[in-house]
């Protein structure tokens, strides 16, 4: 069953064009991050006049990038850990128990995903400000408030995917653990979680990426001290003249952990996605 020539050439053309479309912006980011300032302030060139690593050094002074980094890391790690933990518990309930309100819970959780973020943003801002005034907690403008907000962004998808994944694990396994005298939580931790690792990893990557790149809520719910990278990088643009080589260097450094993580875990991610999604 050999494809005719037009199919083969069509395939080559499509793949070449899509590769260019994908690679060119990434190349621009890479090459601009090692250009001296005068290169990025004049007409674009495909190659730098000479290669310099100074943007990677200077970018830390132009804006408080290290502060943003720390904020983003703390917020993303905390919201990922909590989101995955909450999702594991909820998915265990959904997958292993039949209880009143189970379908309603799933539907409600998933439908929150389609609502525009702007709809929650205004009231959430008001609620956080007022909780702070009433209780002395610090939700508005703090990392805590951001962590609570972000963990719910990935929670519905995480629950849904993990529940699908748990469904593929035979019940005999947890039954056996229960017979051996561990409680339901023990069965979850000792038997189900090890078997569902790809799903857990997929959900963790997804949660981390969600928190790492969120802009809308971060732009309202953070202050100068708690600014995350997603909104902090705009500080470069508010300078008198934009040091594009530093912006690109910062973008590169910010992207590396996420992209490397994504590509390393790509197999687990796709496996987790298909196992959770293609339940027939």
């Amino acid at each position: 069953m050999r494809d005719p020539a037009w199919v083969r050439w069509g395939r080559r053309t499509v793949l070449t064009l899509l590769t260019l479309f994908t690679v060119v912006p990434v190349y621009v980011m890479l090459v601009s991050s090692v250009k001296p300032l005068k290169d990025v302030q004049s007409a674009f060139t495909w190659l730098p006049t000479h290669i310099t690593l100074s943007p990677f050094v200077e970018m830390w002074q132009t804006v408080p990038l290290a502060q943003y980094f720390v904020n983003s890391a703390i917020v993303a790690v905390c919201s990922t850990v909590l989101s995955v933990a909450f999702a594991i518990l909820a998915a265990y309930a959904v997958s292993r128990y039949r209880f009143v309100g189970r379908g309603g819970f799933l539907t409600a959780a998933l439908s929150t995903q389609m609502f525009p973020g702007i709809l929650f943003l205004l009231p959430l801002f008001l609620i956080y400000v007022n909780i702070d005034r009433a209780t002395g907690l610090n939700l508005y403008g703090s990392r805590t408030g951001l962590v609570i907000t972000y963990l719910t962004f990935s929670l519905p998808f995480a629950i849904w995917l993990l529940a699908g994944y748990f469904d593929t694990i035979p019940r005999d396994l947890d039954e056996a653990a229960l017979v051996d005298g561990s409680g339901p939580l023990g069965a979850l931790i000792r038997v189900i979680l090890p078997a569902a690792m790809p799903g857990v990893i997929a959900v963790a990557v997804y949660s981390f990426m969600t928190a790492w790149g969120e802009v809308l809520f971060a732009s309202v719910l953070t202050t100068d001290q708690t600014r995350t990278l997603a909104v902090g990088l705009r500080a470069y643009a508010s300078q008198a003249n934009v040091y594009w080589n530093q912006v690109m260097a910062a973008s590169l450094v910010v992207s590396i952990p996420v992209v490397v993580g994504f590509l390393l875990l790509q197999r687990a991610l796709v496996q987790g996605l298909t196992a959770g999604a293609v339940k027939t």
Partner: protein
Amino acid sequence: MSGLRTPTAPAAPSGAAGSRRNGGGRPRRRISARLFPYLLLIPAVLAELLVHIIPMVTGVWVSLRELTQFFIRNWSQAPFAGLANYRVAVDFSAPVGNALLHSFLITAAVSALAVAGAWLLGTLAALSLSGPTFRGRGTLRSLFLVPYALPMFTAVMTWSFMLQHSTGMVNHVLVDDLHLFSKAPFWLVGGNSFWSLLIVMVWRTWPFAFLTLTAGLQSIPGDLYEAAAIDGAGPFQRFRAVTLPMLRPVNGVLVLVLFLWSFNDFTTPYVLFGATAPAQADLISLHIYNASFITWNFGLGSAMSVLMLVFLLVVTLIYLGLTRIGSSGREGGGRRA
């Protein structure tokens, strides 16, 4: 965080009590067994309540109030306004309503084109990389996922740099390399900004379509193609008779997810153009954001948000009715725009 940890605490002892103490009374065990799944749900439900459910109800309530900057600190005292905010939002002859309608139409147009573009590129890529394996296929697969893996704001920043008038790569290619224009066009202001926005949105979302459709293609049994080939079907007929019908459920959900993402997109215009986008690329989320936070008129902003939600709900329900994808063919989630 201590406020969040307390609800999970009771779950542990009751879980242990459920089966360890075999000497325990039966009725007590049955009650705890029946309550156990609910205990597992508590943390997730509390978080959802705080961030999604309560704010949504509050949003509807606020939209019926005259909540301006004078009432931010004591918003429960904001005077009741009835449907006044909604009347202002949909009065298309006045400036506020007119700008909202314009923004809505722009958003609908960009979303339709972005969905079409992302779906087309995703389908072409998935088809090109399915079938017989060749050298470098795995590399291409990973490469195509890079735009989706990149944090959105860094990708959009890069595009913003590429689209700069005098220092950008795009004008360098169009003017200096290809000589298509004698004078460098502007890409981030005026009419061209619509197309800039569209291209960036497609670049962002097509890898997701590619990923989803690749998974969909892998679930099509190979013997269907063999049967079609025996019947003398060419590649095009095979695509029409086997691939498209088999991908229907996946496509149904994919198009819906892509549409909701594009329609709700805030990050792309916000990072690409700065806080205020040109009128030709004024997506509705950014429009409402500016209408609320620049003028601090939360009542009006909430009314606009509610209208936007109603529109999305109606479109989604009609779409689900037309395509009949219930809860069976499911593939979705994805990142919040």
